[in-house]
């Protein structure tokens, strides 16, 4: 039985530069990197301490200091080239120089529906797939000792020029189903799979999961919205989320015994030249897929325009990202740009720009802040892009003041930064809403746990 979710409030933003639906095998990256910062709040403890050690694909590199079961494994076989450290010896990157052919750690082949649930969980975490799960509340890596009340997978990407999960998963349908089967053993409740209501893909035939047929504008595809509409998180409850391509990696691990860190990365954005889907491995170099760009003119985003990280030439793709977005930098002055109905090529959610009139036009948007940060003055705009039953401005203010009771009452457990991306985009006062929510969540982690 499927549940229909119709989202009304949200942001319809049409950007130029969607990736073409063709898969290209990306050239092999020289090095691959795991960036511990991709796993918020995780403190890595290295298992392989010496640089120059040979590692296999799927061999654990480090574990989480506070959740020892959570291990992060190497996506590729080769030599541990460098453990790059920053201030106070904090680990910034673990760089592995890849071999020509990948040598995998051999795991047992398991049918997830036949084995003991505890053994299955231990196996998944030992093999390095536990790090794929994120815990709500807080958007942090999960604790292997928890049993979540539900697991959510959203295979519907509503972000502007976002990568299409259905296309990415093409050819990995069986692994995806196996992965979903495994998820059902990890939770006390159900596994929910969010899919595009209008598409007719294999995702509609996935078994062992409660299908959520979703329609509506961004952020309808965010798990946050889907959780709130079906099974909202209360205080003390935990829900796990996992990205669909990682479900496929998990499925492949169980059915072949190999940790195949395959990542299909969409190259998109108005400044990207060869816009397509490139198949590579987790943590590949950005420049193994795109040419070097002039970063004064073009911004490289590892991820999507709303939640991605600002990257540079020579960086590696973040662990969870399946997009490289290239958009123009907006570091130019605009004369009298603040006048209403001037510069209509910049889209606006408010009606102070004629950009709202054309319903088909696609926009080229740059990174300009289009103004400066100001006090929160305008009300009612964030609510229009917030489909969850959350009072966005009040929650933001509670986070700013660090008022724990208020945050809790206003639903901090139900949100993660990405749920505020639209609010951040439309905000007149240019408040960094996602950062504010992140800080609020961090306060909750330290104060409430």
């Amino acid at each position, binding site marked *: 039985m499927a549940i229909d979710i119709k989202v009304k409030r949200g942001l319809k933003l049409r*950007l130029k530069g969607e990736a073409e639906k063709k898969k290209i095998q990306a050239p092999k990256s020289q090095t691959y990197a795991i960036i511990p910062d991709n796993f918020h709040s995780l403190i890595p403890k290295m298992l392989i301490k010496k640089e120059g050690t040979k590692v296999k694909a799927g061999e654990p590199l480090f574990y989480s200091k506070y959740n020892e079961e959570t291990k992060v494994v190497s996506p590729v076989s080769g030599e541990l080239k460098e453990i790059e450290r920053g201030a106070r010896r904090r680990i910034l990157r673990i760089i592995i120089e890849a071999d020509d052919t990948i040598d995998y750690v051999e795991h047992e082949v398991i049918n997830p529906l036949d084995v003991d649930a505890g053994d299955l969980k231990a196996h998944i975490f030992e093999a390095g797939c536990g790090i794929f799960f994120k815990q709500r509340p807080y958007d942090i890596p999960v604790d292997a000792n928890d049993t979540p009340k539900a697991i959510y997978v959203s295979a519907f990407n509503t972000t502007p020029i976002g990568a299409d999960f259905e296309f990415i998963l093409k050819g990995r349908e069986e692994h995806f189903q196996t992965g979903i089967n495994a998820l059902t053993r990890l939770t006390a409740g159900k596994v929910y799979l969010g899919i595009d209501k209008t598409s007719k893909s294999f995702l509609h035939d996935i078994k062992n999961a409660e299908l959520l047929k979703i329609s509506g504008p961004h952020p309808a595809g965010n798990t946050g919205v889907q959780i709130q509409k079906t099974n909202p998180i*209360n205080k003390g409850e935990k829900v796990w989320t996992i990205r669909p391509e990682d479900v496929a990696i998990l499925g492949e691990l169980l059915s072949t015994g190999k940790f195949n860190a395959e990542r299909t990365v969409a190259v998109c954005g108005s400044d990207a030249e060869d816009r397509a889907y490139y198949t590579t491995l987790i943590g590949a170099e950005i420049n193994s897929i795109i040419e070097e760009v002039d970063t004064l003119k073009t911004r490289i*985003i590892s991820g999507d*325009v*709303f*939640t*991605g990280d*600002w990257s540079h030439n020579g960086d590696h793709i973040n662990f969870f990202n399946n997009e490289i977005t290239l*958009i123009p930098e*907006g*570091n130019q*002055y*605009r*004369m*009298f*740009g*603040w*006048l*209403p109905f001037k*510069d209509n090529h*910049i889209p*606006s*959610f*408010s*009606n*102070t*720009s004629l*950009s709202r009139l054309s319903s088909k036009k696609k926009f080229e*948007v*740059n*990174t*300009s*802040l*289009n*103004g*400066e940060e*100001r*006090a929160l003055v*305008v*009300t*009612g705009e964030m*609510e229009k892009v917030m489909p969850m*039953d959350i*009072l966005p*401005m*009040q929650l933001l203010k509670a986070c700013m003041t660090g008022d724990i009771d208020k945050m809790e*009452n*206003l*639903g901090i457990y139900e949100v993660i930064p990405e749920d505020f*991306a639209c609010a*951040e*985009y*439309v*905000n*007149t*006062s*240019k408040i*960094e809403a*996602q*950062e504010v929510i992140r800080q609020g969540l961090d306060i909750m982690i330290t104060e409430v746990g």
Partner: protein
Amino acid sequence: MNWIRKKIDKVKEPFQEGEKFEKFAPAVNALDTFLFVPKDTTKKGSHIRDAVDLKRTMITVVIALIPALIFGIWNAGYQHYTQLGEEFTFMDAFIHGAYKIVPMIIVSYAVGLGIEFAFAVKRGHEVNEGYLVTGLLIPMIMPVDIPLWMVAISVAFAVLIGKEAFGGTGMNILNPALTARAFAFFAYPTYMSGDKVWVSEATEMSSVSGETILGSLAAGKEVAYESASMFSGLIPGSISETSTLMILIGALVLIATKVGSWRIILSGFIGAAVMGLIFNALGSSVFSGNDLMNFPWYNHLIVGGLAFGVVFMATDPVSAAQTLKGKWIYGFLIGFFGIMIRIFNPAYPEGIMLAILLLNVFAPTIDHYVIQGNIKKRQKRLKVKTA
């Protein structure tokens, strides 16, 4: 364009970080950003941002005010010449009005922005654009003959006590423009009410009857104007409050651009109409000798400051209720109480000013209950789970 930019960058050099006049950077930046949208790019979070910013929002309100302002300027001259019985042309009236009103606007901006700049430099933040609107609103709601020094003092009071004392833009409880008017109203009542202040230079003539409609009703006199004049605005009153037509044009601009809350505007008029209807229905049967009670409800909507207050003052997002449900309640109560004060208290014929200030104070309370509603839903869910 490029050479202007270069010139400005050159002028700004001594104000950069670590330079001699670093402290005054907010003041210079405020002027610079009026020419150019700065080249700031996104640093954290979303990499793209909406085209709208606070400057654009505030300028949109200023644009919405322009029809009412221009009509107010012309009407000041029109009232002056007709009451004096002199011949005049359109331009005569306009020039007379401008001669009276433009200096008030200049004084308001000079004093208000001066204080804003000083606070920005002192507190080290950028100058917020809110005063662009407030500074224009203050002269628009004053009687035409008010001395300039009173405007200056009212502005200073409004910005210092009404706004900066609470922490600056975004933190104030009361609408600053109305704070200025309320201050002038209670500090200098003889300049703010009566039958001589609403028509320019009426004090020099003994024969002028320049009373506002509400003033004459409160005094138990006949109203000498048709509903059509009340709607078009050819009546004495504060500078820009008279023309409901022009105010509605402004309201359309605010609603079409989504800058003003249509919820507040609509519910404000509904609230006023409901109260007007109640008093019309009661008529003189309950309270005798109050002509305002028998004043038709639709006329209540188009005389006095009701329309101007509901459209431009009540919609100030900072002092209004912030939640969507709260806005309905807030707007309705402003209209409702505005008419009630107007009718019950002839000493303050302009009830809407007091009603908005009152509801400004209660807006956080209204929000509190709306927010509690959201919280209760969440707690109920938790209780069902744990039970």
